[in-house]
């Protein structure tokens, strides 16, 4: 490299740098700042990290790791971080990262559930999830026992921790349009809802769990009646057409209503979880309860069209029972049709009270005696039209004087009560009678007689005219009769004057009239 030592011409000298650099470059400031910033972010993240929870779901539908939020009253309080199947593949186990400072949320009775769009009963919920996707809702429990593993609810709870009130049970044979979330009305005010329902173990009825918000729960006494207030409650009965609704809402989605009989106003509120019967409608709910009803059979020969089970049996207009069953029966020998109608009679509604009984006397024997007495006095069951418009029938148990005496055969079960044809049947019978009698009327001979009579009448009229002529002559002005008439009129005029005198007297002494009359009466 000998040429390197050779001087190079025209190479200018560089200008001196103003300042020398420090040995350790300031550039190291940059990674230090980056490290500090990174560490700070990490510390904030770690310190700000909330608790982790494990939530077990039946299905992972709508759950997405890293996306699905956990919300409380619309505020994000966590996010689902992982979604996996349990070892036996029967469940979905998710872990969720909760927001900082949510430790207080995670207690023993905290509940989680997935919010998806749901249309149930009164509630159309989770519509926003159509856009945002499902999210997990949380209802914070009251317990103080901390918890990190939860089993999610299958259906959203109707009642969350914040709402105060009490639960009651209503038994119904048929769910109808009821669902969890269906409103419960009290005086047409929505005061609660159906929280849940389940089939009883024996499969005979459904138990509805009703949640009544405070303070309305205090209006429920052991005697409160609950009924289906679903939609239009239209009933056609002997009383006519009745339409009952609770509210427009209940027409759309059904409902449950309750009412406490007014006489029960002072009764103490019912205990939580008291079991009630859910009646079909308000009328059923407030129908007087039957006390140990007696069963009887009535046999009608006429059409029972319009008679329905539940139709009342009335005595003097008072419902004393109801129709239980209507059958048809044809006599094997005569092929005569009859309709045996089973009724339930509740004699207590006639005022036979247990407390009126003599000591040692049996209520059963009293009832027997009552029925016997009524029947022997001519009491009969009769079908009557309750409502001309609907043609519905009811059974009237009335006394028909003059009917031949019968006795009730108590050995038969159920005993049979005597019947009489219904009003309509009776009318039909009499119309038939009239027509039959009309048939027997000899119209032809009547006509001939009439003709003869008219001829006689003609003759009589001719003679009658002669008579009238004679009468005319009698009352002519100059006749004797005319003079007599004049005298008579004078007499009448005199009589009128004395009447006036009497009237004047009475005007002055009206008491004489009373006294005189009183004396007369004596």
């Amino acid at each position, binding site marked *: 490299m000998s040429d390197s030592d050779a001087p190079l011409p025209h190479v200018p000298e560089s200008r001196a740098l103003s300042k020398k650099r420090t040995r350790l470059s300031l550039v*190291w400031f940059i990674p230090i700042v980056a490290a500090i910033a990174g560490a700070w972010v990490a510390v904030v993240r770690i310190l700000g990290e909330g608790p982790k929870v494990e939530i077990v779901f039946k299905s992972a539908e709508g759950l997405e790791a890293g996306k699905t939020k956990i919300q409380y009253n619309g505020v994000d309080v966590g996010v689902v971080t992982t979604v996996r199947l349990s070892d036996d593949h029967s469940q979905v186990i998710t872990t969720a990262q909760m927001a900082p400072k949510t430790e207080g949320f995670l207690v023993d009775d905290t509940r989680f559930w997935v919010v998806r769009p749901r249309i149930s009963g009164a509630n159309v919920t989770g519509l926003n999830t159509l*856009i945002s996707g499902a999210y997990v809702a949380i209802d914070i429990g009251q317990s103080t026992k901390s918890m990190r593993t939860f089993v999610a609810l299958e259906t959203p709870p109707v009642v969350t921790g914040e709402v105060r009130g009490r639960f009651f049970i209503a038994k119904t044979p048929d769910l109808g349009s009821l669902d969890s979330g269906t409103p419960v009305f009290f005086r047409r005010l929505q005061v609660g809802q159906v929280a849940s329902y389940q089939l009883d173990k024996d499969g005979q009825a459904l138990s509805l769990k009703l949640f009544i918000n405070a303070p309305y729960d205090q209006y429920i006494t052991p005697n409160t009646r609950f009924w289906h207030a679903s939609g239009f409650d239209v009933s056609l009965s002997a009383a006519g057409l009745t339409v009952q609704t609770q509210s427009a809402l209940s027409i759309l989605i059904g409902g449950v209503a309750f009412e406490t009989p007014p006489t029960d106003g002072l009764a103490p509120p019912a205990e939580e979880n008291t079991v009630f019967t859910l009646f079909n409608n308000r009328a059923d709910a407030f129908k007087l309860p039957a006390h140990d009803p007696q069963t009887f059979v009535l046999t009608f020969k006429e059409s029972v069209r319009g008679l329905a089970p539940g139709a009342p049996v009335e005595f003097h207009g008072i419902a004393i029972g109801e129709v239980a069953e209507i059958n048809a029966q044809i006599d094997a020998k005569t092929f005569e049709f009859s309709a045996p109608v089973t009724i339930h009679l509740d004699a207590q509604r006639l005022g036979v009270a247990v407390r009126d009984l003599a000591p040692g006397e049996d209520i059963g024997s009293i009832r027997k005696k009552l029925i016997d007495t009524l029947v022997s006095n001519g009491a009969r069951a009769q079908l009557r039209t309750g409502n001309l418009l609907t043609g519905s029938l009811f059974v009237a148990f009335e006394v028909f004087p003059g009917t031949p005496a019968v006795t009730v055969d108590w050995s038969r079960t159920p005993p049979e009560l005597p019947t009489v044809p219904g009003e309509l049947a009776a009318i039909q019978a009499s119309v038939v009678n009239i027509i039959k009698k009309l048939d027997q009327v000899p119209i032809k001979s009547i006509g001939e007689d009439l003709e003869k009579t008219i001829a006689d009448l003609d003759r009589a009229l001719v003679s009658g005219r002669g008579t009238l002529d004679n009468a005319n002559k009698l009352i002519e002005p100059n006749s004797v009769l005319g003079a007599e008439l004049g005298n008579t009129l004078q007499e009448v005029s005199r009589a009128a004057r004395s009447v006036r005198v009497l009237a004047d007297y009475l005007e002055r002494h009206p008491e004489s009239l009373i006294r005189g009359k009183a004396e007369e009466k004596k």
Partner: protein
Amino acid sequence: MSATVSTAMQHGLQSCERCALLSRPAAGEHDGRCPRCGEELTFRKHESLQRTWAFVIGAAICYIPANILPVLTTTTAAGSDSDTILQGVILLWSPTGWPLSLIVLVASIMIPSAKIIALVYLLVTVQRGSTANNGQRVRMYRVVEFIGRWSMVDVFVDAFTAALVQLQPLMSVAPAPGLFFFAAVVVLTMLAVESFDPRLIWDSLDAKEVRHV
């Protein structure tokens, strides 16, 4: 390598990086300023290795939060969502959207990490005085330098998206902390590339050759 190679440094001369003027350092001075354009003159970039190391370490540190933290917060009627770069890649991955997803994956995750790795490799080899694969290393440097100016694309895309989406009433996009770290990675790697002096790659070779002679 040819033994006839000659560098300015070997002649005690400095070449101006700006105007290419060759000059001689003033007496007693090591470095100086270009007598023509005033650019700082160094035989080799001033504290090149130290500065490059600092920027690379800084970039490497920022690379971690840039990928862990969300870069964008999307707020819609359905709520707000924060996505990291990787989540964005996954989100975009679809039969039709995969090219875009791939671009984001390459530009935002692979290239920054590749740049950091390449720079570390260059720094280590230069410091150890390695003379192997010199040509390859220079090509690597050129590629890294070339890519550098496009690294900001991702940040700009995010910023533009944010600005555009703000206009829609139903949806808004806001930058999240990860984006700042990501921008820091891009800037720091660019600075690292800038401060690295590729002439160093050849210096060890020269030293070897000098020693051989």
